[in-house]
């Protein structure tokens, strides 16, 4: 089975800015592929290249085993996408918007089909309201309905939870899992939040400054055995000395501020118990994946200009 998406040495340069450099990755059938990177990392530029909105400066994109540049029409017929903000025709109703995009996607959608789709995203009652009256969450849901109306095999969601309230975020997450598990869709979802992606993606790529940092299965990247535990105590210096003498010695990783241990997440209760016995007064304990740790170090860096987001 060939991969659904194969990106090979893809680059895009805007004037002096290298938005995407030599990027390669593959998305396999049935994947929920997490596309991670901070704002301006090149996520949107890559997604726009996948959707033929932007022409690559160099490199190759194959989708469904076919070259995107030569089989554009055929490929796009099987893709549904929400690109950044779910902007739709404000002066038209939800129903009219959905109907327009169904027709453009080349399907003859009847009323029942359209209403079912709206029902699925919980907008059936507002089908005939103009989109300009919608909240951000409703627009997002309508955007997803538009992306799904032609029953695509590949779904691309660019920052689908942006601007949503917690309930909205949970709903989207639920929908993605449902599409993946029940309908067997391949989904590429981008986000600048690892916490978002780790709950849904089976494979993850992290890019920064247009370059791939890491790509792999979530299970491996987010292996509980590689959890970083950060401990804050009343006296870190004493605590670290004591821990260095205990069975936790091997797990201590160098840290300029605070105490950090790389260990299995399941061993945290043990660690706490031992610390109490060693009279270490714990103020806070925070487990983090190594990936998250790394990702955080990226995102706390000063941002550079995002070339594509508006």
């Amino acid at each position, binding site marked *: 089975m060939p991969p659904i998406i194969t990106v090979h040495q893809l680059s895009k340069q*805007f004037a002096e800015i290298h938005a995407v450099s030599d990027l390669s990755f593959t998305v396999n059938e049935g994947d929920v592929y997490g596309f991670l990177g901070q704002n301006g990392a090149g996520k949107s530029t890559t997604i*726009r290249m996948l*959707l*033929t*909105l*932007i*022409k690559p400066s160099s490199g190759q994109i194959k989708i469904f085993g076919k070259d995107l540049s030569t089989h*554009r*029409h*055929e*490929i*796009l*017929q099987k*893709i549904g*996408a929400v*690109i*950044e*903000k779910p*902007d*739709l*025709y*404000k*002066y*038209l109703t939800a129903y*009219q918007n959905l109907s*327009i*995009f169904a*027709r*453009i*996607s*080349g399907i003859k959608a009847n009323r029942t089909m359209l209403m079912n789709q709206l029902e699925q995203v919980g907008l059936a009652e507002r089908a005939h309201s103009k989109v300009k009256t919608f909240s951000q969450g409703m627009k997002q849901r309508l955007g997803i309905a*538009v992306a799904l109306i032609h029953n695509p095999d590949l779904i691309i969601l660019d920052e689908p939870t942006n601007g949503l309230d917690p309930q909205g975020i949970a709903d989207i997450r639920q929908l993605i899992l449902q599409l993946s598990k029940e309908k067997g869709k391949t989904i590429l979802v981008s986000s600048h939040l690892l916490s978002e992606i780790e709950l849904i993606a089976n494979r993850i790529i992290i890019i920064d400054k247009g370059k791939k940092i890491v790509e792999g299965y979530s299970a491996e990247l987010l292996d509980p055995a590689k959890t970083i535990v950060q401990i804050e105590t009343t006296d870190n210096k004493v605590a670290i000395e004591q821990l260095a003498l205990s069975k936790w010695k091997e797990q201590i990783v160098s840290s300029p501020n605070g105490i950090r241990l790389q260990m299995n997440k399941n061993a945290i209760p043990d660690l706490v118990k031992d610390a109490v016995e060693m009279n270490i007064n714990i103020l806070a304990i925070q487990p983090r994946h190594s990936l998250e740790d790394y990702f955080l170090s990226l995102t706390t860096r000063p941002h550079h200009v995002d*070339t*594509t987001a*508006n």
Partner: protein
Amino acid sequence: MWTLLQIELFKIFKKPRTYLAFAIIAAFIFLIQVGLMVNGKDWMKFILAGLDETMDMEYDKLINGYAVCFFVLNLLLVHVPILVALVAGDLVSGEASMGTLRLLAAKPISRTQIILAKYFAAGIYVFALLLWIAIISLVFSIAVFGVNDLVVAKQNGIQLIEANDILWRYFCAFGFAYIAMMVVAAIALLLSTLSENSIGPIVATVGIIIVCTLVSEMEIPIYQHYIKPYLFTTYMLGWKGFFYIGSNAEGETVKGSIEYLPAILKSMTALLLYIIGLVGAAVFVFRKKDILS
């Protein structure tokens, strides 16, 4: 393509802005009609002041439906480009600023199709607009003012076209005006593909028309000889050519004739070439464009 055109039309005619143009035109024409109903004679006397000393005229007959329509078109057709630009300038850039362009361009339709569908939709809009003008300015004026011969005042002469020789000239004039307006639509569309907001292309289109018209009208030799022949505005007054009737050696008008037919055909050709060039450029630009909106 047909589906796409239907969708574009649906979008155009769902926008309140679209109807604004129709309302403005109706109000404008209505004002002229009322004005001419009250003061038409005075206006005719002004136009024909040079003639009044040597000739007797029946001013009541001079103000008729055909004359009113001619007057309306003289004043109105100069401004219709603004209304055309208002809709055509928004076609691509409006979607870019709204954010729907990226959805559209990520669909299994070619960019050429998108541009052509938009241009054809603009074509139907312009057609509806001119039909609306024709109904109100011609049909309505005829109903109110009746029909009679049409007196056309030119810079250095006056001519009279018999009532039964006029209607076809209006059809031709509206047809010509349509081509001229489609050039405006093509300019607006091209500018629209270059912009991410809709105000820019609309203002730029109107600006281009104003500047080109001024250069066309300026009687400065360098402009007259080297620039004017290449400006589209030079050819946009061509609709009037249908109301310049031909005459024989003795100065009698020849029914069904047009004085400068070759010039009109030349204008029409020039405008069609403009349309092909501009729409071609719009397609080219849009195909090359990275959609970042």
